[in-house]
């Protein structure tokens, strides 16, 4: 329902705007979102900090202590969880990025149907992918029935292979979509222009395609890494008994002891949250540095 023909509707310059009005109205526009984020998300972080330094069932005694943090840091299980989460995040995000780059390069000149098929997993919840992975890959699953037995353990494997597969399946298409969004007609025209000017295919890739895809690829990979780092329900279903991820470590802490576990759980979740934030900032800076 196009009311105006977009091509002809192009005023020479924006009109009817008071100078200086934009800055303040932008603040008003941002306010609701900032308020939600600061109150709810900020409140959540404060709540987690409070839980981690509070004696169990606090209130009666208004003291605080670092006992939960100390207990967590002296627990080898925590360090194993930290290592496991880091390892999963690195492997899953790099694998997704590599496959996505190849897939997007191949898919960009294909039809819409193929692109749609590749984007199916984006809409499928992680939990469902994990359920499907269990049906196919768990001992006694479809793959076992079809092949006799699987050569390597996937579901509940100590390597975390099941978790990695689920995230690669889920996140590769997400990265492909991000990449395809910048690999459109404009980029193709620039590639052609470079080729006409005598650039070799390698040079086109290095100086035209790579600068265009680098930023979305980095930002996408950052998001994927942070996601996997905080993995919770997928390792609950597909992870090994030990080690846990940081989030499942926190969950186990609350299950093990409803009282003293809360503080330890909150502390380990804060570590997970802090690491995700650091990943975010690091790659954001990296991506911005590439623009200059």
């Amino acid at each position: 329902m196009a009311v105006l023909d977009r091509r002809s509707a192009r005023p020479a310059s924006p009109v009817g705007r008071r100078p200086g009005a934009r800055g303040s109205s932008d603040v008003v526009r941002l306010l609701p979102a900032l308020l939600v984020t600061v109150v709810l998300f900020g409140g959540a972080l404060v709540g987690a900090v409070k839980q981690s330094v509070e004696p169990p069932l606090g209130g009666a005694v208004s003291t605080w202590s670092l006992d939960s943090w100390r207990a967590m840091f002296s627990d080898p299980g925590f360090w194993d969880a930290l290592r496991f989460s880091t390892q999963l995040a690195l492997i899953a995000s790099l694998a997704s990025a590599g496959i996505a780059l190849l897939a997007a390069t191949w898919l960009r000149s294909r039809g819409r149907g193929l692109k749609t098929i590749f984007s199916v997993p984006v809409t499928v919840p992680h939990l469902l992918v994990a359920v499907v992975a269990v049906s196919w890959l768990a001992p006694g699953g479809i793959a076992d029935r079809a092949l006799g037995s699987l050569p390597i353990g996937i579901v509940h494997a100590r390597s975390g292979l099941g978790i990695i597969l689920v995230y690669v399946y889920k996140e590769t298409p997400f990265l492909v979509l991000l990449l395809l969004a910048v690999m459109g007609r404009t980029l193709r025209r620039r590639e052609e222009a470079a080729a006409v000017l005598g650039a070799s295919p390698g040079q086109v890739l290095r100086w035209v395609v790579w600068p265009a895809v680098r930023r979305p690829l980095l930002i996408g990979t950052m998001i994927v890494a942070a996601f996997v780092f905080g993995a919770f329900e997928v390792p609950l279903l597909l992870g090994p008994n030990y080690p846990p991820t940081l989030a499942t470590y926190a969950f186990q802490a609350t299950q093990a002891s409803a009282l003293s576990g809360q503080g330890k759980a909150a502390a380990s979740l804060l570590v997970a949250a802090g690491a995700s934030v650091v990943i975010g900032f690091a790659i954001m800076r990296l991506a911005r540095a590439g623009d200059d």
Partner: protein
Amino acid sequence: MTERRIGRWVGATAIVLFAAPLAVLVVQAFAEVWRYPALLPQQLGLRGFRVAFGSGDAGRATVDSLEVAVTTTALATVIAWPAARALARSHGPRRTAVLMVLALPLLVPPFATGTGLAEWFIRLGLADTRLGLVLAHLTVVLPYVLLVLIPAFSPRVIELEEMARSLGTGPVRRLLLVTLPSTGAVVAAAALLGFLVSWSQYGSSLAVGGGLPMLPLTLLPFVGADPTVAAALSLLFLVPAILALALASRGTREAL
């Protein structure tokens, strides 16, 4: 010719890899008896759905999950809309800082956010309530919706709005006749994503609303214990995702 054949081959592989695994859910959901090592079930039936809707209480969980997801998505879209407009046309370090703050909840594990919120929600009487769940989901969903919405407000859309304004079109007509038609596809995509993120929240729901089980919470315990019931619940879980995708792709086509 060869290129075409390769394309077809890769396409078929893609379907097998991406779409076919989901088909097993359908078989599993109706499998009454499926003994190892048979490749197909020995007996089909509706036990999975009977248990899911009986002791699993799937009906209520579905309605609750839908209500929470729809409310969360609506709130997130309304809140993200003006913010996306402001961010779309600003530049510089202040924009990056604001964007980073608004995007942060996306990177932090929802179970962490939920656990922190539960600390307050228990005191405020919001734990195990729909409002509590909506607020927890909103924290997680808002950055997704916002990030998808930002590109909607391209310079061209702003130009069109300016033109309509200079022609004397009022704000409501401008929104209905200019802004919405030209941003519809992106808004649909943002809402779709928001809905799906809320619909599939596990960690935050468990932390603030364990007593009011959403569908993902209902599903998880069955996965190891009873694959047939788990598959039946999974199909239920998949339906809105497919519907939302169909709706959004229709929206995209109409907008084009």
